[in-house]
């Protein structure tokens, strides 16, 4: 095991403190990574993982503390300095130029030049060599726009390697991958450490942390809770360290018969923003008191499906029925009137107006309803009372209804959306990526809230790229691949592997489901 | 903007002289308080306005007057306020140039009947004001006569097209006066020559002036007389480009396109303004309401043949022009208005 090699550290961060105004993001954090190990850095959102890595990578200067790389004290004042020291960072959001080829992206800013011109042949050859030695298979001549997400990530890693990185930091690398792709990635990372490189992995997927890493450091509220070998840890123990209390991991599914159909999609086709087919022949039904989950790798039509159902994108063909009303092509206000509540995937963009107050956000969609409006005038008194009640009920941490959403933490912003959408007594709930970017403690609360709606007889369509979430909550599980529903599975019996194969299109026989 | 620049330096150079003049005259009863003069226009940096400025500057140098220049810009809302500011500002004489100012001027003048407003280049129906009325049709008559004679004489640069051109800014009465004067002048000396006229519709578009005159030159017209402000500058450029001739207006435009300008019809605003201030300062001819016509006879309007063109002009043409000029000045040759 890597831990046995020696007390020979690749990275030592000692007593790091970093403040942003009143907020202390890292409080006297000491973090040491041995050479040749995979070291996982875990913690909830806002625990300070990203800040710590940004300090290490020279994007923030610490207020106090020191950093040693390979035993030598250094001052990392910019990412360039970090790269010069052999550090490399693979960001969660890729920073590739879609119109350039793989090789061009990898050598962007450090092109191999001969006679004043870029030597494409040498670049391609160099990428091939790097690809072979690292085990990251990509075609250097392809244009990045055409690559899958997994390939893009490989390009990002190659880019880091090409710049001579011996210490690689990966921020949430599996968030966009299928389980199979995730396992391939881990195999590659293990290959890196076998070659003497060092890997720092930021994650909040506890299972993969335990599976792949040698050592785990847990951060909570900006401070280190502990650093322990992965071998002796369990998921429950890790979660408790992160959250500060025991966390329930059981499956939430309960029995109970589904009621009448609430939402029916029949042979829906739709196009994406570029006018290309995004949904093909999608049929599905969601019954009262039932959770139907749509699993799939991000970007296979889930976004468009959610938009079509929510009335934000007109289908090019097909029928849609909600509570007996034809809603195909109807605008969002009509669909909402027919019984839709919607928790969108991109909360900060679509779910809230961060500039406005909580009160104003709570009102959205009901500004013309008789509950909050009279003769065209908004009854702000009622809105304020409603907001205050919801703040209490959903435990939103804020100064009050007048506080701007901007002032809330990410988890509390999510609660504002949930509070608004869950409290209106709608019969159909569309939930898109409910726990994306949400930490374990809050995830649990959100899952409980969803199950409560199910028990109340609400029909729920859940779209998630997190397989464990789908399996935990769903009564029926549909898999989406390239705009088609390719499988209907029983979450009680299906294995992760099986779902993963469907997500990759292995069973692409265009099976329409009930 | 070399013109503006030279004007500036002239102004500085003249300050000393003005001071000297003021001191020299300080003994005189009328010179205890320098005459306060204001001038209002939107066109001080161009054409006619430059000429007015020259007269004012000369008067300032010679008589030590206190001079305020107000540039109106193009905001109609401001005009009235600007006149009011001046009317309450204790000025002896206020010169005004520009037809767009007329309404505001009249209103202010009605409210301040004691204030001497002098409107340059036009006659209004207001009893309180003084008007400097350039008899531009007289000058234009001479331009018509000159171009007609040269066409008939087949002088250098003139083909047998028997057409001369006129380019006006806007089709407004003042500009019509120029056209009619030219037509009469041409008819007086050469009945077989016709005047082709065109109006640009704007005074502010040299490009349009250039384009329209190119079209005229393409028709075979040899010379264009322009009365179009900055639009006319385009005519001068086009003349250079086409290797044809143009006639300048208002001020001596000969230097602005050497070799392409035949002559300039001068409205000597400087002479008129200077004379008026002089008459007021020395009491010889105080300003009174009513029209003051300034034509060929008083030297307020004249035609100047550009120096580099003199060799081209046959002697008999020069002689004939001298006769016509004298005829117009004496009133022997009557130039009819278009009214």
């Amino acid at each position, binding site marked *: 095991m890597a831990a046995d090699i020696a007390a020979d550290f690749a990275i030592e961060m000692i007593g790091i403190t970093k403040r942003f105004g009143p907020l*202390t993001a890292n409080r006297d954090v000491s973090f040491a990574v041995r050479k040749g190990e995979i070291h996982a850095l875990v913690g909830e959102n806002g625990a300070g993982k990203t800040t710590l890595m940004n300090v290490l990578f020279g994007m923030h200067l610490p207020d106090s503390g020191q950093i040693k790389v390979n035993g030598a004290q250094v001052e990392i004042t910019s990412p360039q300095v970090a790269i010069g020291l052999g550090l490399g960072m693979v960001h969660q959001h890729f920073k590739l130029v879609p119109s350039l080829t793989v090789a061009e992206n990898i050598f962007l800013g450090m092109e191999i030049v001969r006679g004043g011109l870029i030597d494409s042949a040498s670049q391609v050859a160099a990428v091939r060599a790097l690809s072979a030695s690292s085990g990251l298979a990509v075609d250097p001549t392809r244009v990045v726009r055409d690559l899958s997400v997994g390939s893009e990530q490989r390009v990002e890693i190659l880019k880091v390697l090409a710049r001579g990185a011996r210490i690689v930091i990966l921020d949430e690398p599996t968030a966009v991958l299928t389980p199979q792709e995730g396992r391939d990635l881990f195999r590659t990372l293990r290959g890196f450490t076998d070659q003497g490189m060092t890997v720092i992995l930021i994650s909040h997927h506890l299972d993969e942390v335990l599976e792949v890493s040698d050592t785990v450091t847990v951060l909570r509220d900006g401070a280190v809770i502990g650093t322990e070998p992965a071998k002796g840890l369990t998921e429950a123990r890790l979660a408790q360290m992160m959250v500060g209390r025991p966390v329930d991991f059981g499956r939430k599914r309960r029995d109970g018969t589904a009621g009448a159909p609430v939402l029916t999609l029949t042979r829906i086709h739709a196009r994406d923003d570029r006018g290309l087919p995004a949904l093909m022949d999608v049929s599905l039904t969601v019954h009262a008191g039932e959770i139907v989950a749509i699993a799939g790798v991000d970007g296979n039509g889930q976004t468009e499906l959610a938009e079509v159902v929510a009335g934000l994108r007109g289908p090019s063909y097909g029928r849609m029925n909600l509570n007996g009303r034809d809603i195909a092509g109807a605008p969002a206000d009509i669909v909402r009137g027919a019984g839709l509540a919607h928790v969108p995937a991109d909360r900060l963009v679509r779910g809230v107006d961060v500039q406005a107050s909580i009160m104003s956000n709570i009102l959205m969609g009901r500004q013309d309803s008789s509950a909050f409006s009279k003769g065209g005038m908004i009854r702000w008194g009622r809105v304020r009372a409603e907001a205050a009640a919801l703040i209490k009920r959903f435990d939103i941490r804020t100064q009050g209804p007048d506080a701007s959403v901007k002032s809330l933490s990410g988890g509390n912003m999510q609660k504002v959306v949930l509070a608004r959408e869950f409290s209106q007594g709608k019969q159909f709930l569309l939930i898109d990526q409910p726990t994306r970017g949400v930490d374990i403690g809050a995830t649990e609360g959100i899952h409980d809230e969803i199950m409560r709606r199910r028990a109340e007889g609400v029909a729920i369509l859940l779209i998630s790229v997190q397989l464990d979430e789908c399996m935990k909550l769903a009564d029926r599980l549909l898999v989406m691949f390239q705009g088609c529903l390719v499988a209907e599975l029983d979450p009680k019996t299906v294995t992760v592997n099986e779902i993963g194969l469907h997500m990759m299109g292995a069973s692409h026989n265009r099976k329409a489901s009930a | 903007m070399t013109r503006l620049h030279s004007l500036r330096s002239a102004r500085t150079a003249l300050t000393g002289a003005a001071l000297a003049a003021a001191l020299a005259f300080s003994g005189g009863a009328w010179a205890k308080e320098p005459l306060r003069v204001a001038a209002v226009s939107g066109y001080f940096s161009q054409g006619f306005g430059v000429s007015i400025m020259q007269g004012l500057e000369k008067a300032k140098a010679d008589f030590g007057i206190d001079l305020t220049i107000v540039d109106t810009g193009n905001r109609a809302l401001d005009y009235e306020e600007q006149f009011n500011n001046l009317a309450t500002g204790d000025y002896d004489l206020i010169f005004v140039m520009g037809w767009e100012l007329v309404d505001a001027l009249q209103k202010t003048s009605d409210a301040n009947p004691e204030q001497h407003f002098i409107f340059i280049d036009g006659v209004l129906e207001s009893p309180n004001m003084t008007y400097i009325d350039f008899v531009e049709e007289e000058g234009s008559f001479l331009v018509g006569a000159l171009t007609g004679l040269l066409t008939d004489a087949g002088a250098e640069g003139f083909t047998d097209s028997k057409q001369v051109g006129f380019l006006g800014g806007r089709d407004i009465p003042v500009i019509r006066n120029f056209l009619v004067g030219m037509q009469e002048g041409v008819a007086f000396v050469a009945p077989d020559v016709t005047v082709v006229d065109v109006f640009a519709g704007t005074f502010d578009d040299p490009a349009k002036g250039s384009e329209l005159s190119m079209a005229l030159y393409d028709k075979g017209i040899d010379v264009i007389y322009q009365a179009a402000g900055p639009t006319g500058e385009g005519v001068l450029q086009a003349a250079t480009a086409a290797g044809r001739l143009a006639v300048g207006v208002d001020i001596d435009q000969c230097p602005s396109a050497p070799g392409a300008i035949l002559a300039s019809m001068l409205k000597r605003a400087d002479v008129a303004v200077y004379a008026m201030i002089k008459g007021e300062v020395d009491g010889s001819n105080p300003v009174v309401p009513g029209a003051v016509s300034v034509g060929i006879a008083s030297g307020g309007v004249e035609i100047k043949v550009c120096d580099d063109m003199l060799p081209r002009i046959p002697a008999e043409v020069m002689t004939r022009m001298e006769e016509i000029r004298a005829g117009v000045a004496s009133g022997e040759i009557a130039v009819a208005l278009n009214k």
Partner: protein
Amino acid sequence: MTDIPLARPERHVPVWAQGLIGQMLALLIALAGGAVIIWLVGESPLHVYEVLLRGALGSAENVAGSLLQATPIIVCGVAACVALRGGLFNIGVEGQLYVGGFAAAWVGFTLNLPAGLHVVVGLGAGMLAGALWIILPAIMRARFNANEVVSTILMNYVAVLLTSYLTIAVFKRPGGWSETAPIAQTAYLPQLMDGSRVNLGLIIGLALALGLYLFLRYTGAGYAVSTMGSNPKFAAYGGVRVKRNIVAVLLTSGAIGGLAGGIETLGVHRRFMEGFAPGFGFDGVIAALLANGNPLGVVVAALFFGALRKGSLLMEVETGASREIITVIQALIILCVSAQILIRRRGGISGEKRWKF
């Protein structure tokens, strides 16, 4: 291990006060910059500012003159503000002002209507013309997401040249400068006092600003519009018909721009003339931007601009400083205010922009 001090309690200054202090500071810096320029052209800044102040506010007539100058800026500012709050940029207020002014004047000198009604019809025609003038950019924005900034700017040129053409070639008063025949007396927008051209337009402008403020704050439709302005995706998600609202907002903005023109022709000039109100549309847009879309702030900014303009007229007569100094000071103010807004935004926790500059 050292003790890490917890976050120090911050001095608490309310956001609005921060904003006000920021604006005032920006204004002071701009005036200081203007002073340097005045000094450079050889005048005493103190004297120039004194004359400026006196010219703007020194007497009842001067205050009235400032209000007269501010009136079109207020109305144009409200026009720009409507669009701004809907997340849209109507840079075409200038053009709407021109066509609105012309249409109102046309009603004034063509139709024969009883007093009162004549004014209403004239202003109505101005609003209609302004709305029509923005209909193309509005539809192109809603349907094809075509940038309204560009299309409305382009429409400005068309408006200025078209009204100029109509004035010179079709409706020119015989023998006059480039202006139309005067409007009938029945179409005069009443003036508020003797001896000044300040007219009912000022009251209309103030009422519009207050109305817009109340509309945005207290009505469902206003809520929909302002939410659309600050986050269109959120608004669409919540059921606001964004495309329809884009058209409605832009048409309203255009109509108010047209109204501004009608007020100027019926209330001040009583005819249409070329250059009857150049730049007021742009001043209005700037006032709206400076006020960050707050209709009441627009009034303040417009009054300030109006006072600057009025003061500059006396400044030109009494001092050697050119009236263009005012343009420089105004530009400095815009620069300083935008800079301080940017600085405050960057200082905030969230980097989100309120308006898409």
